[in-house]
């Protein structure tokens, strides 16, 4: 009951949906769409668990006055404030305050975190691009040449540009293809392990 039925469910639904891919009939399409909705709906209901997890972790920190507990107050307050202003009374998703917070807190923070990458890509290049071995030298040279494309190098600009394009279109394409094929096989194998019940640790013990 606790472990066998879920395993049967995984197997039956896994096999059915794998077969569904090959069956274009209307019943099969409708079934597919219905089942996809299940996934979405389970995900939505699970959000309650996510929010509970946030509250639980935050509450424990505040209760035990553990380090930085004050910030958990910030998280909880801002979370509830956002939900409060998102109520349909305030206009839901289009409520004024909701939009203002979204546009002036959420968006700038999001964009700024993304832009930190500019700094990290620089520090990573400095630290990691060292000609330690043949392999790392190849990595270094390839990256350097592509970066040099941006810099005005006078008569060298054309050859550097050509090498850069060649690297993107020949070795890069080959590498991408090989990885994608490998990923495909590995992915199918993993999915198969789940469907056949070879991997079952997510079902717990007992």
């Amino acid at each position, binding site marked *: 009951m606790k472990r066998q*039925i879920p395993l049967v469910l*995984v*197997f039956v639904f*896994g096999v059915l*949906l*794998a077969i569904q*891919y090959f069956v274009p009939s209307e019943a099969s399409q409708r079934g597919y769409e*219905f089942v996809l*909705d*299940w*996934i979405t*709906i389970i*995900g*939505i*209901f699970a959000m*309650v*668990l*996510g*929010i509970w997890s946030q509250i639980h972790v935050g509450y424990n920190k505040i209760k035990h006055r553990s380090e930085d507990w004050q*910030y*958990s107050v*910030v*998280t*909880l307050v801002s*979370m509830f404030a956002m939900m409060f202003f998102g109520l349909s009374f305030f206009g839901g*998703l289009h409520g004024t305050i*909701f939009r*203002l917070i*979204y*546009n*002036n807190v959420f968006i*700038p*923070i999001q*964009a*700024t975190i*993304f*832009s930190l*990458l*500019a*700094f990290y*890509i620089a520090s990573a290049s400095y630290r990691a691009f060292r000609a330690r071995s043949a392999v790392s030298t190849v*990595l270094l040279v390839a990256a350097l040449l*592509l970066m040099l494309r941006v810099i005005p190098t006078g008569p060298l600009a054309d050859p550097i540009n050509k090498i*850069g394009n*060649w690297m993107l*279109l020949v070795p*890069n394409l*080959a*590498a991408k*293809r*090989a990885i994608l*094929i490998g*990923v495909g*096989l590995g*992915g199918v194998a993993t*999915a*198969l392990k789940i469907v056949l019940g070879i991997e079952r640790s*997510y079902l*717990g013990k*007992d």
Partner: protein
Amino acid sequence: MEQTVSIGTILWTTVGVFLTFCLFSFLYKDNPFYKFAEHLVVGVSVGYWAILLYYNGINPNLFSHLFVFANDPTTGAEFNTWTPRLKGIHYIIPALLGIAMWTRFSRKYSWISRYPLALYLGISSGIAIPVTMKNNVLSQLRGTVVGLGFDWSVSGFLGVPQGIWDVVVVVGTISSLIYFFFSKEHKGAWGGTAKLGIYTLMIGFGATFGYTVMARISLLIYRIQYIRDWWKMIF
């Protein structure tokens, strides 16, 4: 040109700029400002996501099947009348599955939540098997033969015919694939080919890295321009 900006806009933009600085301060070291911004954005994003799921998730995906929706006569906006809709009665199943997730709050019945989880994984895995086989394996196999032109008359890089380079792409793909074999040790000719594969991979990685730098710097430029615009707005 004189532009009038409302005090509200200035205040809200200043909040955004302040938070931007809070986050940049992380580059120096972890500090209370960063901690504040971090915890704030986590809270706001959870709240935002929950509200978004309510309006754009549960309403169209579940309630619209289970209940009758009507249009508000004045605003035209749709709203839920909470009258059951018999045609969508089969949506009771996902609703029950969703509620089963909540059994995790109880120690005794939490095993019931394994049913929806098992379905979730079973369905996703089942869908993935043929689709992954097609998109990753077959399409790439096709790409190696049809995607490339194998044109011997056009001269490509270094004056070498483009067709030769296309063969090089296939050879690179093959040697990289050989690198990924698990059953055979990298020794002898096999190891040599695998070595060629790892060099191909590394050139590809290096090129992608170098190529991406520009896009990342652009992100920073936009941020600095955002601060500059705020500066101009205030002064």
